[in-house]
């Protein structure tokens, strides 16, 4: 019984591996949950219908964990996925150690539609990443508690949240940049360690108000909807879904701007489906696909607005005209461990 079971399992595995090698199939990973599910249900079918390339969609864990897994896989000369959705910090770190395959921009004509800078090029003119989408983090509130939308990020520091704030635990959430722009006149203060310490000390003033330092989005969203939390930092796209669902939540772009982050598609070095991946990237960069992602996923498009047919209402649902706050990735990469330890120390002490 046991022997036959493992035998069938082994054959099944062999067929699966053999199958992946021969047919035109792309394994594409994206952040597990809403992102991965919506991409698989709404976006990939159009690509398959047009090219005949089937997509096997898989969920990937949180960025740094995924980065660790990609590195371990690369050492074993394997690619856990042919394409993967990553934030810029992972993109640059992976680039540094040669994790990504080289792509030919000539094979991806669709990418010319993207705004400047979203096709990342090597010195030799090859591309190692293509922009996928942008997403906002905003000031979210429970409208049962706070019916009026906050006007400025500074309100986060006001003494009115009834000790019910929810804040992300990681230093790259954008809160450092929010604090720098709101209280220190810009990102310059973050260039030195003394400056960063001042910004962190300002964030520490939030501590008496914060009841949840979260790493798990689900926990935050559930608590905010239930009124266990009154406000916090959260992703605009998923907040919008809750709002459309009738939950008492508001997602606000304060005067200083929402926090914008870019996500890129990368192809792990050992993928064998480079050609199909290039076709996919070309497809995903089209204005109509970018508009479709804005409508179904609530993410911010990375093609010029005039190239899309989004209505004003649709556009304002996914973003804002206010100059956004940008996570200063170069500082996070440079200060890496020092910054993470200082930040964690501030939270956990």
């Amino acid at each position, binding site marked *: 019984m046991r022997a036959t079971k493992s035998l069938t399992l082994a054959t099944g595995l062999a067929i699966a591996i053999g199958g992946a090698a021969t047919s035109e199939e792309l394994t594409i990973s994206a952040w597990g949950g809403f992102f991965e599910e919506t991409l698989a249900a709404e976006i990939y079918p159009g690509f398959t219908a047009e090219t005949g390339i089937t997509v096997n969609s898989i969920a990937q864990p949180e960025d*740094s964990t995924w980065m660790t897994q990609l590195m371990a896989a690369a050492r074993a000369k394997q690619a856990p996925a042919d394409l993967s959705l990553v934030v810029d910090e992972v993109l640059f*770190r992976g680039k540094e150690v040669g994790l990504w395959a080289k792509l030919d921009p000539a094979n991806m004509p669709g990418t010319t539609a993207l705004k400047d800078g979203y096709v990342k090029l090597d010195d030799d003119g090859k591309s190692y990443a293509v922009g996928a989408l942008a997403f906002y983090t905003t000031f979210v509130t429970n409208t049962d508690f706070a019916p009026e939308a906050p006007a400025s990020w500074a309100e986060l520091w006001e003494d009115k949240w009834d000790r019910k704030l929810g804040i992300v635990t990681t230093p790259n959430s954008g809160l450092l940049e929010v604090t720098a722009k709101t209280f220190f006149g810009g990102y310059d203060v973050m260039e030195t360690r003394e400056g960063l310490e001042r910004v962190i000390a300002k964030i520490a003033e939030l501590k008496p108000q914060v009841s949840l330092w979260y790493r798990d989005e689900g926990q935050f969203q559930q608590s905010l909807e239930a*009124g266990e939390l009154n406000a916090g930092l959260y992703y605009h796209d998923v907040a919008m879904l809750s709002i459309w669902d009738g939950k008492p939540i508001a997602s606000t772009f304060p005067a200083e701007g929402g926090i914008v982050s870019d996500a890129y598609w990368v192809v792990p070095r050992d993928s064998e489906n480079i050609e199909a991946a290039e076709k996919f990237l070309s497809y995903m960069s089209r204005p109509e696909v970018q508009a479709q992602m804005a409508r179904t996923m609530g993410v911010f498009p990375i093609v010029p607005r005039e190239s899309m047919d989004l209505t004003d209402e649709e556009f304002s649902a996914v973003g804002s005209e206010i100059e956004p706050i940008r996570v200063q990735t170069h500082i996070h990469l440079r200060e890496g461990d020092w910054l993470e330890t200082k930040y964690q120390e501030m939270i956990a002490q």
Partner: protein
Amino acid sequence: MTARPAYGAFCIGLFAFSALAVFFVVPLFFMVVVSFYKPDPMGFYKVTFVWENYQKFFASFYYKVSLRSLYSSALGAVLVVALAFPTAIAVSNLSRKWQLFWVILLLSLMCLSEVIIGFAWLIILSESAGIPRLLEFLGLWTNPRSLSPSFWAMMIGLVFLGFSVVTLMIYPQAAKRDRSIEEAAVTLGTPPSRVFTKVLVPSFRPTLISVTLTMFVYLLGVFVMPTMLGRPKDWTMTVIISDKALGDANLPLGAALAVVMLVVTAITLAVALLAERHGQR
């Protein structure tokens, strides 16, 4: 006749030892090696020999976190055993049918994953659906607040996690114990209410100590309860290590912290066992 079983036992022992060597000692060895590599913020790590990962342990707040971990695991272990031991005794005094019922119940509790238990307690302690709301309904609490995250929420999670394991560890011995000793104690004038402390606790002493130490080590490694139910200032070393190794992709620092924790745990256990032996003399 005697040679064959001994030979068989030797073979099994050799197999177990080699499995232990391959699946435990070798990864441990790699962990120690990696803990001396230099973390590379842009990549992964560089293969050189540095002490900086260990220096960070003492230069930063990590040593405070490790003391905190030792404290919460030790307290958790003592609480678990303090609750589980009377339960095991009580269960063993029931009729066969009810004993079976309790054993099956405790076994099924062990099937629940840590995450499920954590979420369940999160709801039970929440102000919108749990105990605080119930107290408000009963008029005992006017402005109810969520009881988690807090130190005691985490402690409840830890105790819940260990309770069924420890009860089932003690139960077989409790069921087989020689009850005539308790009867003799009562006959000789010990009040029945004091039999538990005067007779049962001393006769189970070695078991209780070894179970407490086992629980202590087990609770040191729990990850979900501190993150879900604890405040950041309750986070244990396990949380920090996984943050470093996975979250920040700083494997060398994570490995160094794990090695330090391993050494600290070994010393703590050794001291506890020595003290126990000393106490027996």
